[in-house]
C-alpha cells in the first residue's frame, strides 16, 4: 500500500485532514459520502414521484387536462438552462483537474448565472399560476373547469417543483462558497473534493428536472 510514501505526499495540501491516511483516501471518502447523500436525495424525491404516479393513475383525465395549464415553452427553456449549467459545472471540475484556476472561476460563475435564470423563469411561472388560482389543495380557486381532482395535480406540481427549487437555492449557496474558494486558488489537481462533490449534487438537481419536465409539462 505504501503508506509512508503517500503520507509524505499528502503533506502538500493544506486541506489534508489528519484522521485520513492520505489525500486519495480523503477524496474517495468524501465522494462516497456524497454518493450516499445523493442516494438519500433520490429516495427523498421518490415519495413525490410516487404521489404523482398514483394520482395520475386515479385521475388520468385531470392529469391530461391540467397539464395544459403549465407553460411547456418556459419549462423547455428551463430544461436547456439547467442542462447548460450542468455542462459548465462539469467543466469547472475539469478545470480544477487540469489546474486551470481562471477557468474554474468563469465556469462556476456561469453555473450560478444559469441557476438564477432558472429561478427567475420559475418565478414568472409560479406568478402566473398563483394569479389564476391554480394552487394546491384547499388554496385551489381556478374558475375554469378541470375534471377530477385538479387540486391534487397542482399539489403535486408545486411540491415537486418547489422541492426542486429549494435544492436549486441550496445549490446556489454552495456554488457561491465554491466560487470564493476557487478565487482564492484552493482547488487544484491534487485537491478538488468540494468542487467535485458540489458538482455531483448539481448534476442530481439536473437529473431530477430531466424527469420533472416531461412528467409535468409534456406527458399525455
Amino acid at each position, binding site marked *: 500500500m505504501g503508506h509512508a510514501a503517500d503520507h509524505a505526499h499528502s503533506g502538500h495540501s493544506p486541506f489534508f485532514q489528519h484522521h485520513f491516511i492520505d489525500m486519495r483516501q480523503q477524496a*474517495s471518502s468524501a465522494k462516497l459520502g456524497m454518493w450516499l447523500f445523493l442516494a438519500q436525495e433520490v*429516495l427523498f424525491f421518490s415519495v413525490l414521484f410516487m404521489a404523482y404516479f398514483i394520482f395520475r393513475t386515479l385521475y388520468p383525465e385531470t392529469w391530461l387536462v391540467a397539464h395544459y395549464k403549465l407553460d411547456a415553452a418556459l419549462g423547455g427553456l428551463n430544461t436547456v438552462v439547467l442542462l447548460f449549467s450542468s*455542462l459548465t459545472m462539469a467543466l469547472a471540475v475539469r478545470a480544477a483537474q487540469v489546474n486551470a484556476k481562471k477557468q474554474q472561476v468563469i465556469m462556476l460563475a456561469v453555473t450560478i448565472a444559469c441557476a438564477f435564470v432558472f429561478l427567475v423563469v420559475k418565478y414568472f411561472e409560479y406568478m402566473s399560476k398563483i394569479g389564476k388560482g391554480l394552487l394546491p389543495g384547499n388554496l385551489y380557486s381556478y374558475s375554469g373547469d378541470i375534471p377530477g381532482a385538479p387540486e391534487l395535480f397542482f399539489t403535486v406540481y408545486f411540491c415537486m417543483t418547489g422541492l426542486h427549487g429549494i435544492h436549486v437555492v441550496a445549490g446556489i449557496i454552495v456554488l457561491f462558497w465554491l466560487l470564493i474558494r476557487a478565487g482564492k486558488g484552493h482547488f487544484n489537481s491534487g485537491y478538488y473534493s468540494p468542487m467535485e462533490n458540489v458538482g455531483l449534487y448539481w448534476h442530481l438537481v439536473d437529473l431530477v428536472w430531466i424527469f420533472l419536465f416531461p412528467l409535468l409539462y409534456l*406527458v399525455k
Partner: protein
Amino acid sequence: MADAHHDELGAHISPLQTYFAVFGALLVFTVLTYAVSLADLGPFAFPIAMVVAFCKAFLVATFFMHLKYDERFNVVVFVSSLFFVSVFAFFTIIDVTGRGALRPEEGYYVFQEELDAIAAMEAAAAAEEATAAGEEEAEADDDDH
C-alpha cells in the same frame, strides 16, 4: 502520478469534446421529448417520454458525474437507490391498483368523483347512442322512400 488523462488523485480527466458531445446529445433528446409530446402517440407517448428521460439521465450520470470512471461501489450506491425506489413504487402501486380486485362491481374503492365521471361518461355514451339510433332511423326512413 498526473499525466494527460489522470490528475494527481488518479482520477480520469475527460477530454473537452466528450462534454460538448454529451451536451449536444442532451439537447437533441430534449427536442425529441418535446416532439414526441406534440405527436399523437396514444398509449406509447408515456413510455417513450420515460425512455428518453432515462437516456438523458444515463448520459448525465455516466459522463458529467463521471460514473464511467468512478469506483464501482459508487455506481452500486446510486443504482441501489434507484432499485429501492422501484421496490417502493412496485408494492405501493400493486396495492393502489389492486384494491378493487375481488368484487369491483360492488365498489371496494370508490371516490365520489370517479362515480360522477363514470355516470357522466355513461350518460354521454347513451346520448350518443340515442342520436346514432335516431340517425339510423332517419336513414332507414330515407331508404324506405
